[in-house]
């Protein structure tokens, strides 16, 4: 077996080790390269920034623990921004397995920002039905969620004063890791109940949501850890996303180098085979 053939059949544990080191080392020794703000992330930031105090902001945390590393930092940044702007925050989830995590992040950020449940924010929790929940909220919010996650009746909560349905929401952002997520909020929510919508998603999902962005169906998109890092910079509170960008940089570069190497070996072995054949 020649060197190129051996390299093409390299033990995958070596690749695992390279990726492991590329993730670990930058986390231990961060470089802190500058991060450029993209227009799609700025779209979400600018819209929240333009909302007057007391506006209703709905954040739907439509993800489960599998997508926590990418979407959790997005949720933290958005909540910090909304609370800093004194918006009335309605948080919820369409993913049953994400309920506990969503409750924790909302409670944690609210406590950090000195906000009270029922007065400044409410966490509605999860309700069965998937996309039907969105339509139900559009028709009657109190019918879809008669009580919040802690069991308090939603009717009479000061944070929901003047809010009867999704039509009274000024801005909604869905942080989605799949279906139901951003697309469902557009199709079943924004299209009928006419509120402004933004999105956040995992890195692999982002390219699929660009058609919605370009057509104005969503006014901004926070894509993956990079999007979360950009948002952390915009609100001037660096966190886990910015810290993780060096690791992501190194891993991307490692994969690019591996792909280039594999192609070099591939062409080299193909040329040799041709020469031997000819």
């Amino acid at each position, binding site marked *: 077996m020649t060197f190129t053939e051996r390299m093409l059949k390299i033990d995958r544990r070596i690749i695992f080790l390279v990726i492991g080191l590329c993730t670990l080392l930058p986390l231990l020794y961060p470089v802190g390269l500058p991060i450029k703000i*993209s227009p799609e992330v700025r779209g979400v930031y600018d819209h929240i920034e333009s909302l007057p105090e007391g506006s209703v902001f709905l954040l739907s945390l439509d993800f489960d623990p599998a997508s926590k590393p990418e979407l959790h930092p997005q949720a933290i940044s958005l909540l910090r921004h909304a609370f800093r702007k004194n918006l009335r925050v309605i948080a919820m989830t369409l993913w049953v*397995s994400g309920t506990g995590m969503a409750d924790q992040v909302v409670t944690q950020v609210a406590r950090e920002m000195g906000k009270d449940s029922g007065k400044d924010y409410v966490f509605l929790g999860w309700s069965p039905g998937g996309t039907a929940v969105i339509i139900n909220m559009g028709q009657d919010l109190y019918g879809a969620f008669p009580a919040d996650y802690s069991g308090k009746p939603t009717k009479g909560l000061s944070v929901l004063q003047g809010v009867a349905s999704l039509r009274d929401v000024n801005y909604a952002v869905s942080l989605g890791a799949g279906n139901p997520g951003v697309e469902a909020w557009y199709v079943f929510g924004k299209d009928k109940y006419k509120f402004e919508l933004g999105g956040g998603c995992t890195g692999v999902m982002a390219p699929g949501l*660009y058609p919605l962005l370009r057509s104005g169906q969503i006014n901004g998109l926070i894509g993956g850890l990079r999007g979360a890092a950009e948002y952390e910079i915009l609100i001037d509170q660096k966190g886990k996303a910015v810290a993780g960008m060096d690791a992501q940089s190194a891993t991307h570069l490692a994969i690019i180098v591996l792909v280039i190497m594999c192609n070099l070996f591939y062409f080299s072995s193909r040329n040799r085979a041709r020469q031997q054949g000819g």
Partner: protein
Amino acid sequence: MNFFRRQVPLLITLITGIVFAAQYYVPHPASEQMLTSVTKWLQIIGGFALVLGVSSLFHVHAVKIRRKEVGWGYSFVLYVGMLGTIAVGLWSNGKEAIDGTMTAFGWVYNFMMVPLQGTMFAILAFFIASAAYRSFRARSREAAVLLIAAVIVMMGRVPLGEYLIPISGDLSQWILNVLNASVRRAILIGVSLGTVALSIKIIFGMERSYLGGGKE
């Protein structure tokens, strides 16, 4: 019996299909009230679907354990995990924390489910890297185009890539905003037209596979 098995479901599908397709364009309060009622039904049915899904999962794995099929041990682990979580969940009244104190259910969620799901997702990075090395080869012109686009987007999406090749950020944005969005939109339009065609076939009874293939 055939009337109740075939004609009645077809009639219900026809009427509800036409009524709710029309409902979208009728903003009258009566029409909106009807939508409100039906979405409440949908939520209730969604709850039942969850119960149905769990019971079906129990049934499938019970059969595997009883027959001692290959990998029945995993089914046993699933049983223990599910029954244990349900028991702990009921005991904790479905709450992860009460007055700031973590319940047993919260412990299962935070220290078992969250790390397990996170680990599963994180492992993907290693497998993707290995798969990219083995299969991402420029075997044809199309594959070469895909390869170059992927490298540009990967460079442009991280600070190190933009630092090494400053133009990669703008190039990556252009690929995502123009090439990717237009192709995705074409696919979306195709899928949507297909969905409309299938819906019409179901509403008018031309597509009946949802009724099941039982004997008439």
